[in-house]
């Protein structure tokens, strides 16, 4: 009797959050799905509720879609490689005995809390700017020609900015994992004469593999929707137009709602493929 009572009470307590998220997910998503089958261009007063898969066909076959996929791949891939490799090294370094460990941790984590528009603008103007940026001074100091980062290597520049923001996240999570490593095992390997590299390869890396997977999946989900960094640096020009940015431009700049919505649905499907893998890992962890 008491359990039945508390069960129904529990349902009532969960309901508001579930309903809020259900409405949040279903209503706009259904609208996007509906628009994706329509020819809807409000600026020109065009509205044709059903044109079948026309939007999908033209979105998927357009050259801008293919190039946006490639850009997305390089951007996410570049950021992931830098943050994973850098994160593992930083985590191992921060785990060593040292003076002022807490302060170093704080210094390393700080970039994660900088709002995206601030970090993008600071890097764009004060570091990458060809006339007054710090990198230009560095190039000149070394006797080289200043390099115009954002127009010569725009994709690389954005990768640097975002990797700087996300390296702390990778470091923090990998550090948590490193600290849970059984130190006796490592000491035993050291006493047996295993060189540092094989200790890393056969003990540390396998232990970290799960945390690395989680970092990759979570970052991928966030990185697929990078927006502000592109918005304030290149505005999607010079081959920095990712899938997210392409959809944004179709929907809000050229106001081709049908086409943009089809692109939105494509983005949702791609993100879901990544999400399924992440959910499996999280789901397994819930059991124990």
């Amino acid at each position, binding site marked *: 009797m008491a359990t039945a009572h508390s069960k129904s009470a529990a349902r009532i*307590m969960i309901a*508001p959050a579930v309903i809020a998220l259900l409405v949040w997910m279903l209503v706009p998503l259904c609208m996007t799905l509906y628009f994706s089958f329509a020819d809807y261009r409000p600026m020109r007063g065009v509205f044709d509720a059903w044109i079948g898969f026309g939007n999908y066909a033209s979105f998927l076959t357009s050259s801008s879609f293919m190039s946006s996929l490639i850009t997305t791949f390089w951007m996410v891939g570049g950021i992931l490689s830098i943050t994973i490799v850098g994160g593992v090294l930083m985590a191992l370094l921060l785990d060593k005995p040292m*003076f002022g460990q807490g302060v170093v941790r704080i210094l390393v984590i700080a970039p994660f809390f900088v709002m995206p528009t*601030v970090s993008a603008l600071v890097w764009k103007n004060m570091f990458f700017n060809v006339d007054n940026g710090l990198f230009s001074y560095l190039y000149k100091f070394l006797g080289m020609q200043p390099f115009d980062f954002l127009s010569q290597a725009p994709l690389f520049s954005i990768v640097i900015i975002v990797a700087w923001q996300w390296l702390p996240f990778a470091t923090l999570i990998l550090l948590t994992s490193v600290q849970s490593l059984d130190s006796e095992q490592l000491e035993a390997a050291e006493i047996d004469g295993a060189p540092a590299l094989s200790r890393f390869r056969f003990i540390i890396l396998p232990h970290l593999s799960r945390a690395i997977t989680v970092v990759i999946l*979570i970052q991928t989900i966030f990185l697929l929707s990078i927006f502000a960094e592109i918005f304030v640096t290149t505005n999607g020009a010079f081959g920095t137009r990712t899938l997210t940015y392409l959809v944004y431009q179709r929907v809000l700049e050229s106001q081709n709602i049908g086409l943009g919505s089809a692109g939105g649905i494509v983005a949702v499907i791609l993100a879901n493929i990544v999400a399924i893998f992440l959910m499996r890992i999280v789901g397994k962890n*819930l059991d124990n």
Partner: protein
Amino acid sequence: MARAVTTQKKIMWTALAWAFGLLMFFPILWTFLTSFKTEAAAIADPPVWFLFDWTTENYAAVQQRSNYPLALMNSIIIAVGSTILGILLAVPAAWAMAFVPGKRTKDVLLWMLSTKMLPAVGVLYPLVLLAKWLGVMDSRILLIVVLMLINLPIIVWMLYTYFREIPGEILEASRMDGASLKSEILYVLTPMAVPGIASTVLLNIILAWNEAFWTILLTTVDAAPLTKFIAGFSAPEGLFYAKLSAASMLAIAPILIMGWFSQKQLVRGLTFGAVK
């Protein structure tokens, strides 16, 4: 002898770690220094490091920009408002899932997590359309609700992991003593749940403060928070590095401080308990 080697190694690791730490922190340090320079000193060639005439004129100039106080106010109201609203919805849900777990609790939790993975562009136009229909475009309430919804899964998850650590025996004991559900929540659970709720609030304010997709696209002037205000600096007028730096420092300083306090919770909050 062995001790000497250890100390030597320790000094080596310290030097290396500090070097990397300062490298990571450098852009923030540089912004901080530049914010106290005159515009001329900010672009001096070669760059000046510490020996310049420190001035606070940039901070004064930024405050006088007509829309800065409004943007700051908007940031505070939106971040705090969405957090409070999220907590109000999430605490009962997380409490129920942690203490009265049912067969479907795990599915509900995972489903909530999956809503977090919905790419924002996928629902961009419907949101704009709905906001216009309801006449709430460029309003604080719109952003409070939207940011609450995108962060709700994280709030529920964090609270759930905290609540699950509260021993169930204490609840049973209080029930045996005849405590009602209301007093059980009020006098037994709340004191134990407060630290977890506090960390959740902290992390959520940080996330809401820095959110830069919806805050940029759903606002124009009236509800524009600091993210949007700073984005307005992307079209520079003349010399502006020092003012940009001052505006940036004002926008990130409170969150940096909060972030340093919540670094431990960050792992828990953003990995959904997948890394311990």
